[in-house]
């Protein structure tokens, strides 16, 4: 698969402070990479570097085969960016906000209605953007970013502050874009979102990648306790560690059909992050 974004040993220093240290990642077509970390861990700085808004202090970064320090309009034509600072023209309607970008990007205005239907804003088509809710504005920004069907999409906390229904709608859209072959770079501090959507995740803490892999791989790597949570039909609850004795007990319950439910207690990305860094993801 085509490598859309490659970062090799990227570091960024602001005056005395090292914001990013030795970041190495890559994104291929049809893949979602989650960049997870608390506020101030370097997520937005990374997006700014790879989109040419900032320059790294050390390391090499290429986007669609071009050095990120030399991004041209041709490259921007093939990427979409949604950040928490993406602006909209509040005094214009939803449709007009998209129309100007359609004209600039040489996209047929016919696409706009279809796009508005996809992001659930077709009923607000003629409404002024100033009248939209935060979630609706976020969906408008997302619609604008994917209008020209970019190869690579950057999303900086796309569901931050949104209600669960809107967030779920955005997740659905992202999965369909991924299936259509788009590469997606997603920063979030929502571990559930990352587990659900991402093919690969990088856990970022104070500018370092402290863990990298698929969400399952990372969780299994930290599954040292290997515990099982069991609910018996008589409503007794048990948490058993993986010992020979406990496994024998478990087999007996299975054979005698006493088990109502059985779960393995694997760590979540959140607990992994806390184990690795000693801090919470906020």
């Amino acid at each position, binding site marked *: 698969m085509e490598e859309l974004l490659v970062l090799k040993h990227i570091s960024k220093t602001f005056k005395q402070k090292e914001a990013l240290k030795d970041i190495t990642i890559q994104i291929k077509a049809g893949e979602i990479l989650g960049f997870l970390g608390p506020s101030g861990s370097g997520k937005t700085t990374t997006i*700014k570097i790879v*989109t*040419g*808004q*900032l320059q790294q202090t050390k390391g090499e970064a290429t986007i669609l085969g071009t050095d990120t320090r030399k991004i041209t*309009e*041709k490259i*921007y*034509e093939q990427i979409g*960016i949604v*950040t928490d*600072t*993406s*602006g*909209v*023209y*509040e*005094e*214009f309607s939803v449709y*007009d906000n998209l129309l*100007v*970008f359609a*004209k*600039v*990007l*040489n996209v047929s205005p016919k696409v706009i209605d279809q796009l508005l239907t996809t992001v659930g804003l077709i009923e607000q088509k003629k409404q002024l953007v100033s009248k939209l809710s935060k979630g609706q504005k976020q969906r408008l920004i997302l619609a*604008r970013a994917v209008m020209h069907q970019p190869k690579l999409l950057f999303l900086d906390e796309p569901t931050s502050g949104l209600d669960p229904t809107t967030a779920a709608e955005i997740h659905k859209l992202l999965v369909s874009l991924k299936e259509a072959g788009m590469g997606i770079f997603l920063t979030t501090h929502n571990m559930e979102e990352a587990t659900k959507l991402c093919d690969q995740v990088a856990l970022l803490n104070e500018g370092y990648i402290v863990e990298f892999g698929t969400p399952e791989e990372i969780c299994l790597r930290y599954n040292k306790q290997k515990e099982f949570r069991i609910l018996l039909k008589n409503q007794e609850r048990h948490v058993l560690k993986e010992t020979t004795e406990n496994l024998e007990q478990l087999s007996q319950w299975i054979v005698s059909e006493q088990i109502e439910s059985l779960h393995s207690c694997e760590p979540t990305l959140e607990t992994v992050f806390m184990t690795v860094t000693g801090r919470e993801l906020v």
Partner: protein
Amino acid sequence: MMLSRHKTSALITFKFKEILKNKTFLVSAAMVPGFVLMYRFLFSVDETMPGFQLFLMNFGMSYSIIMVGMFMPATFLAKDKEKNTLRIWMTSSVSSLEYLVSLMVPFLVLTMLLIVVVIGISGVAFDSINIPVFVLVVFLVALTAIILGMLIGLLSKNQMAASNNSILFMVVFFLIPTFSEMNQTLEEISAFIFTGVASKMVASFGDDGSPLILQDYLVLIVSAFLAVVAFMVIYRKNGFDKD
């Protein structure tokens, strides 16, 4: 840097719409003919005085150049920064040049249109105006003012800062030429200011349209050149939005 015709024209159309929806612009633009008409009405007794219509025309022209030509591009650029819409253009396939041209063209057209309106309502006869000289000078002066306005916008974080930063420029480029005929020192200073050259040109229409001298054209060219250089230097140093 290449200028894409379809992108630039789409942006210019959009900027025109944005400007014409903006209340601050509409009020500022309406104030230009409003003040000229008010002066004409209030001092109607002096209409027979030689040069009164030219004073009105000079006032209206300088006011258009400063309020619409300089102040508005400053606030519009600052607004795009404040509302994070500038970053969207800068991380799209729109080049800096295309963005700048799209901001410059509407203000240039609107400033020149306002000046034509000012001529009409100030009572100056069109046939007393040396049209080629007038168009050339007004074009250069408006262009210089717009570039300076964009420079102010570049240096301002938001619209409020842009308004504050514009005040000094307004004092120098509007008040000095407007009142230059009332004070010898102001007149001497005004001769070296691009808006002062425009005022001098208007005054010259009363003397059978005697054209400007070489020094005046040099002032216009050097001012435009310095404005472009200052803009380029600040732009290269900070970009549109310093991080």
